[in-house]
């Protein structure tokens, strides 16, 4: 039995899934000020009359960290940043205090300039005097050589409640993003940990000892204990829940467009051969670009309740929602009004009269009948989605590549179908099918799709391996692994090692049974030459456990 809970902006959804069937589901309003209480009461209600001993896992998608960042309710952070030569660094300042320190490591991981220890001591003292309890340490090229970050952490000792070292956040190269990611990890640490402690206590009180997983923005999960260490990974998991929900309700192994059309917005995602398309580096939250791996998603201000205006004799929908649809007493006509007029959704006479009234008013300006206006609105909505999808596809298919092979023969994303969920999904499906000229599927029931997505999401991980055989060093920053290798180490050995590292660590991320679906996502090996002789190999490998479903949904999902 799996329990899934998705805490969204307005609602909390919860489901229980047993043997691939949704056996129970609920939907409750969110309490933004007390997320723990909201989740706890949802959970309690969900588990009434339930055999708690049968719960295998509890998967949570929570906005705790996201809200703290968006609402600026994070803890003060002191940042120790070593940028060395290169670009200017003033813009990297984040958190309450920033110390830009001496020392420098180059792109090969060579220490060019040592740390000034007294400088660090002074900074640490300053931070603690100001009552700062979280400290981030980021040096440029720390993923190539984390030595100075580790040394600084050792100097700080136990002066702070939490210390984040940049290289533990991601193995990818991007110093500014590593700074921001480390900062955010520190900033939400106490908020998320308070939440985690409360959840764990509450479950204990309820007599539930199932493992708890937290949904990440990449559509995978992590154990609550890992989340306590890397709370930044829990940000913006909402779109991932919805994405996984669509995949659970409408599985596909093709290139596909996934849409979640709601009242205010439409979220757009893509599948490439059934595998989610990710953001190239990481997600952006507020003004911060991060290295938090995330599903590629784009939200456009276009939904059932978007307000409609006539601009230059054309229908313009959204991006704003100015209230309820006109039929239900709102100020502006909306696509929902068009649907009522066309009798595509249930209504009563009073609503229908108001909907017609709003269509008539628009129709007058367009010289169209009430029905024609309503139809035109829905067609326009389809057209707007198509235009956005086309624009995104062009962008995606022109992403930079670095080899002749990829430039000439690289995979292009060519969607073969559309999977859509959300209120207007059923009504818009035929329109989208026509506008985009692709088959369009929608599920019979989508109401708790996000909770289903959260419930069925599997643990994921990604590692970045770099090997320099002239230095005889192998590194995997995500696992804090830095070890010696033989000078004869090669790409095949690196790939094997990466896969076995992923498998070994599968347990720690909560994969306890079954095969570990590890795969290599990127590989390269460069001959390094000094003078005119080969001095070694520079090997780069990425491996992952990709997002996927714990089990497939079976039969009718209505519960």
């Amino acid at each position, binding site marked *: 039995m799996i329990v899934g809970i998705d805490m969204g902006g307005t609602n909390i959804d919860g489901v229980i899934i047993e043997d691939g069937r949704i056996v129970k589901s609920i939907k409750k309003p969110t309490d933004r000020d007390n997320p723990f209480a909201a989740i706890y009461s949802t959970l309690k209600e969900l588990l009434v009359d339930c055999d708690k001993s049968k719960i295998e896992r509890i998967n949570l998608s929570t906005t705790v960290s996201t809200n703290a960042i968006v609402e600026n309710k994070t803890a003060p952070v002191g940042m120790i940043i070593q940028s060395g*030569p290169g670009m200017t*660094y003033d813009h990297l300042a984040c958190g309450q205090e920033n110390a830009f320190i001496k020392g420098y490591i180059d*792109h090969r991981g060579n220490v060019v300039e040592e740390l000034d220890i007294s400088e660090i001591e002074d900074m640490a003292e300053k931070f603690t005097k100001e009552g700062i309890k979280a400290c981030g340490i980021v040096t440029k090229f720390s993923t190539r050589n984390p030595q100075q970050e580790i040394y600084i952490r050792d100097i700080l000792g136990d002066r702070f409640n939490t210390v984040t070292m940049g290289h533990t956040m991601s193995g990818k190269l991007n*110093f500014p993003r590593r700074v921001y990611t480390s900062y955010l990890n520190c900033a939400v640490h106490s908020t998320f940990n308070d939440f985690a402690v409360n959840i764990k206590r509450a479950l204990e009180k309820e007599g539930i000892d199932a493992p708890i997983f937290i949904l990440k923005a990449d559509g995978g999960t992590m154990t609550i204990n890992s989340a306590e260490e890397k709370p930044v990974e829990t940000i913006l998991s909402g779109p991932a829940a919805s994405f996984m929900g669509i995949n659970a309700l409408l599985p596909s192994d093709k290139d596909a467009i996934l849409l979640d059309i709601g009242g205010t917005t439409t979220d757009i995602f893509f599948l490439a051969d059934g595998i989610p398309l990710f953001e190239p580096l990481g997600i952006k939250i507020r003004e911060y*670009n991060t290295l938090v791996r995330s599903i590629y998603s784009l939200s456009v201000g276009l939904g059932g309740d978007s307000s409609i205006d006539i601009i230059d004799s054309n229908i313009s929908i959204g991006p704003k929602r100015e209230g309820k649809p006109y039929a239900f007493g709102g100020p502006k006509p909306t696509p929902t009004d068009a649907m009522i007029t066309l009798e595509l959704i249930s209504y009563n006479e009073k609503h229908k009269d108001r909907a017609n009234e709003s269509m008539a008013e628009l129709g007058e300006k367009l010289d169209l009948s009430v029905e024609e206006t309503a139809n035109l609105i829905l067609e326009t909505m389809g057209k707007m989605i198509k235009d956005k999808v086309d624009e995104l596809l062009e962008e995606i298919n022109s992403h930079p590549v670095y080899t*002749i092979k990829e430039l000439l023969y690289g995979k292009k994303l060519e969607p073969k179908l559309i999977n859509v969920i959300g209120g207007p999904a059923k009504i818009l499906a035929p329109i989208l099918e026509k506008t985009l000229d692709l088959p369009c599927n929608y599920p019979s029931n989508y109401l708790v799709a996000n909770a289903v997505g959260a419930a069925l999401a599997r643990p994921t991980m990604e590692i970045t391996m770099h090997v320099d055989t002239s230095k005889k060093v192998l590194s995997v920053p995500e696992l804090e692994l830095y070890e010696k290798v033989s000078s004869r180490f090669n790409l095949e050995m690196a790939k094997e090692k990466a896969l076995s590292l992923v498998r070994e660590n599968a347990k720690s991320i909560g994969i306890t049974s079954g095969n570990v679906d590890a795969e290599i996502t990127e590989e390269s090996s*460069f001959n390094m*030459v000094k003078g005119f002789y080969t001095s070694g190999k520079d090997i780069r490998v990425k491996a992952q456990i990709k997002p996927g479903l714990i089990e497939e949904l079976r039969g009718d999902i209505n519960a």
Partner: protein
Amino acid sequence: MLKAKNKLGLVFFPAFDWAISSTHPEREERLLYTQDQLFEEGIGDVEGIEFFNPAIANEKDIKRVHFCVPDVKSRVTQSHLISAGGVIKSLQMVMDKKVDKSFALTRPPGHHAQRVVYGDRGFCIVNMEAVAIEKIRQEYGNLRVAIIDTDCHHGDGTQDIYWNDKDTLLISFHQDGRTLYPGTGSIDEFGGPGGYGYNINIPLPPGTGEEGFLYVLDNIVMPILDDYKPDLIINSAGQDNHYTDPLTNMNFTAQGYAVLNHRLNPDVAVLEGGYSIEGALPYVNLGIILAMAGMDYSKVHEPDYDREKLKQSKDITEYIKKISNNVYSRWENRENLYIKDIKGMEYIQEQRQVYYDTDGIMESQVQNFKVCKKCSGVNTIDSRSDRRHHIFAITIPRDACSSCIDEGYKLYKNTANKYTNVYLQDRLNDEFLAK
């Protein structure tokens, strides 16, 4: 978030799967550490800096510039078409005003590729800038272009291609040809009759540092550009003047390259040579990018940068001043020099040997330029290689007068039987014949 003052397009294409050979300087690894540096600095997140993939040049784009012997297909690989395509893309984006400036970090390089191509010389087969410029001219009209070649080696390929073209000003400064490959690039190589004075060489002594390069820039290049008023400035941005370069003997720096690009303010920069792939390229490229984007590059420097140690000697400074005066007075005097050296002649014939160092081919050729009052003049190349090719190539220039066009086609029709291949390049009508 950081914002670029100039919108900059980067065509960064390191061709990680292409090499001349596995230990050759022009190998897969060449731009790997540049990529690491640019990625780690977060260049792609700067607002106003955007990465683009290269376009792919086609056979006609190559024929517009080169006589490939025996043909394009057998001489030019996909990697060359892509590298040239990268420069085409860079120029197009600037012309279409999608970006203010662009930088093509593509490989292989091209500035040693001449009009006739038997094979690879100086790691070059296709002249990337020339192929791109000529394509752009077909699409956007006959622009006045200035190419400033800051590679340490003389841009002899570009010189050969634009020798007779006054609409393309070439200024190459390089380590003196008496001390470095390819050996050419002296001050008196001044252009053909159709472009006399518009080929400017500034040979610099080994050991030239920041001071010398910037002196040349401020005292020759910038004043000449002010006179010339080009529509487009292209920096052939070779990076082998760097003090760590393994093939050369200069003392230029990442800071120096950044300052140079800041002051030169090119519309487009194109990577050429530069083989200190760990110690120079990551920093030089970062410096050029920041300078072109109008951002602060003052903190860009190499790990072992030591300003005092890299200072050029007084002798060098004096010598460079002397050379600069000489070059600039020749520029100012170019019309008189034309009258003295060329006026009254009907044809100018130039004979020379060309060595293809990478492929080990020896070529001997005679170029013949018609001195025409109405246009740049039809011109021909009679060339023989030690691989038993003997070709005759005719170029009708973009500004050709009707009698030069007729003469070109007549020459093509009535060639002697002794040639293995005959080519006609009609740049005016954008047509290319071979037999």
